[in-house]
């Protein structure tokens, strides 16, 4: 048995307000559709339409001005029961504020119905112009008449992809029209036209709703997109994000006794981040603790590419690097980006490509032709060179990481080995 939708016959609206008509006809339409009131979730927001909540025996959700379409969409996205009906009541003011929310719900064709109470102005706040106010219509903020055209919310919603949009007059029995809207699977929006008796009528005396609608230039009608309603296509999901991270066993040793701050830097596309990852993982396989972070311009495919690495035999807390102990530079971009840090070094080592100008630094500068195996391999080769010359990690440990990660085919391993043996 269908229970009553309204808990009172005295709705809280001014005499002649279209909101009263919409509320009564919406509940009548729901009755015709045999919805149980508690299978209906009514989402409202700020505006006179929103004070209907207390009169309803449905679930009621009362949100922020203009945001009810997004809030209702969220409820629809979380709802797994197709027998529920999610309805959003919103005014023309709220529609203006939350236009994007209506566009998004239309685009995704989220299963819900939005009832736009368009009385051509913000009523609750004192009769101000909204984005749906037609040209020439007088409001408390445009006494000489609105100079602008209002949004065609139906056209916008339809174009964005709503399954069903319609514009109707808020006059007489509109329950069958609302029933049709509420039956839609997917996103439906109905714009109900009315005049606010407190502000609209007083500021626009002698004007009839039919005449206002006609001069507004937005025709009554309905518009349909034959689309499937939104379904949450989620695809496959990870069951455990930690499982995919490869475990690195300790199979090598490192002589490192004190923490070492290392910077690898070169140009984008020249393997800097890959090379830094190899050092980090090889260091872990050598029993060291490691931190690593990348740094590059927002346009990731151009300019410098830098990675800051800390290596330590003990646990690392602070991972910032002010003055590095070792810097590996493979290109002019990398040198320019790290010049100040290199100049601040009072000791340590700088490995740099032999094509680059030696900066003023207290570090020992070791130059080599890192780019000889091609620019793309410059950083990779420099990392091997660093390993060979410092012994902090072994070249074997790097080769092993490359093999374990299946990166061998993408790198010129034989050439790297030849070049290393020639040193």
């Amino acid at each position: 048995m269908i229970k009553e939708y309204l808990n009172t016959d005295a709705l809280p609206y001014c005499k002649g307000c279209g909101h009263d008509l919409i509320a009564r006809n919406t509940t009548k339409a729901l009755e015709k559709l045999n919805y149980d009131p508690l299978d209906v979730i009514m989402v409202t927001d700020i505006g006179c339409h929103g004070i209907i909540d207390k009169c309803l025996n449905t679930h009621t959700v009362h949100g922020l001005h203009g945001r009810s379409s997004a809030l209702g969409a969220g409820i629809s996205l979380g709802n797994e029961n197709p027998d529920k009906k999610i309805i959003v009541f919103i005014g023309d003011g709220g529609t203006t504020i939350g236009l994007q929310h209506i566009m998004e719900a239309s685009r995704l064709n989220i299963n819900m119905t939005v009832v736009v109470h368009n009385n051509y102005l913000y009523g609750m706040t004192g009769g101000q112009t909204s984005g749906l106010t037609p040209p020439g219509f007088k409001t408390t903020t445009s006494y000489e008449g609105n100079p602008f055209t209002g949004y065609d919310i139906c056209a916008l919603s339809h174009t964005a992809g709503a399954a069903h949009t319609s514009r109707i007059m808020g006059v007489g029995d509109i329950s069958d029209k609302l029933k049709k809207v509420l039956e839609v699977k997917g996103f439906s929006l109905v714009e109900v036209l009315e005049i606010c008796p407190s502000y609209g009528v007083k500021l626009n005396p002698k004007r009839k709703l039919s005449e206002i609608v006609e001069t507004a230039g937005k025709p009554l009608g309905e518009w349909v997109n034959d689309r499937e309603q939104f379904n949450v296509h989620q695809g496959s999901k990870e069951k455990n994000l930690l499982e995919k991270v490869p475990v690195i066993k300790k199979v090598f040793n490192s002589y490192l006794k004190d923490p070492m701050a290392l910077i690898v830097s070169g140009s984008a596309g020249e393997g800097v981040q890959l090379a830094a990852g190899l050092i980090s993982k090889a260091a872990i396989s050598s029993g060291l603790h490691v931190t690593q972070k990348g740094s590059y311009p927002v346009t990731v495919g151009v300019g410098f590419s830098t990675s800051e690495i800390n290596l330590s035999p003990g646990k690392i807390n602070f991972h910032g690097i002010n003055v590095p102990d070792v810097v590996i530079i493979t290109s002019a971009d990398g040198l320019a980006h790290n010049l100040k840090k290199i100049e601040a070094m009072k000791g340590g080592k700088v490995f740099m490509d032999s094509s680059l100008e030696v900066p003023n630094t207290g570090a020992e500068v070791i130059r080599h032709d890192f780019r000889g195996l091609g620019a793309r391999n410059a950083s990779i080769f420099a990392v091997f060179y660093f390993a060979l010359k410092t012994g902090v990690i072994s070249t074997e440990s790097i080769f092993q990481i490359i093999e374990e990660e299946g990166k061998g085919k993408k790198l010129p391993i034989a050439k790297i080995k030849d070049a290393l043996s020639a040193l």
Partner: protein
Amino acid sequence: MQENKKGNRTLTDASRLIIESMARAGADSFIGYPITPANLLYQYGSQRMPLMLAAPDEITTLQWMAGLSATGKVPITATSFPGYALMIESVNMAYMMELPMVIILVQRLGPATGTATCGAQGDLSLLRGNISGGHPLPVIATSSFEDCWTLSAKAVETAIKLRTPVVLLTSKEEVMTSKSFDMASLPEIKKTEQKYYDLDCEGAYKSYKPTDMVPDFLPVTQNKHQVRINASTHNQLGLLQHSTPEAMDNTRRLEEKIKQKAFEYIQYELYEQQDAEKLVVAFGITAAAAKDAVAQLQQDGEKVSLLIPKTLVPVQDVYAEIMDSYNKVVVAEENINNQFSEMIYGIRKPAGHSFVGSLGKMITPQQIIEEVKA
């Protein structure tokens, strides 16, 4: 944790730990939109959460989360100040509606868009005051990879048990840095279940009638009892009120609920050295530098203790009590206005308290050491 045997480490970033932890703790939905430096969290969220939706903007993100939460889901998102600023009205809405959710706030250098790829700790003052009325919104700050695991779960637990939005406060330097990490050392995480109202109870359900400060939950998708959820001032039924005594009691309860109940979840670390008269205080990313600084100072023969606050809001008396018991207190945080101390003491800090700040750079252990020795 069966993935690794102890001693076999991985190279991972903290974003991964945060999302996995939250998923295990009971979060089931991620609403995302791109913002640096929170993008790794978005990526992992989309891979791991049973429900992931890309929102078109920040306000929609929070509104969708609130809607999901009203159906019984536990949504999370990740953002940084520019996005969070746009979410604040909706965070207030979810706070008033008592809808659980977690917002991971990855701090970056402000004001405004500032520098997206530069870390900072500049958002605490905002978070302390971002609920109109001054009510406390729980803010939990991670200060290590271990925290990213345990406190992320704690944030979800707090959100569900207190029925509130919770902010997990982290920073660019934490979630975008990879470290060698032994995942086998991570403790198990238990899923937190929502406390549902007994559907078979006779009589009227009141959406905001509290049991031990917190109302029992019913989703809007059941049809045994009427649910009324309201962002405006409301009575226990959830009906809009101007300022009736019952409605004011409800608004007061929101304050008391967090103040009293969040205390059960308070997190901090205190490393006390016997006879120490000096104390270093640091939260979040700066705690790492503080740990190194205190270790070095102790090695140098200084007697110094270390406090790492983790539950930042509601503000806890215990922090003032601890800080008051030292003659010299050095608070280090990556901003230029000492927001943590201001939150506790206002603009007049006690004598003997000093501040190490920074803008656009991580605070180094050396800076803290120098201030402690000064």
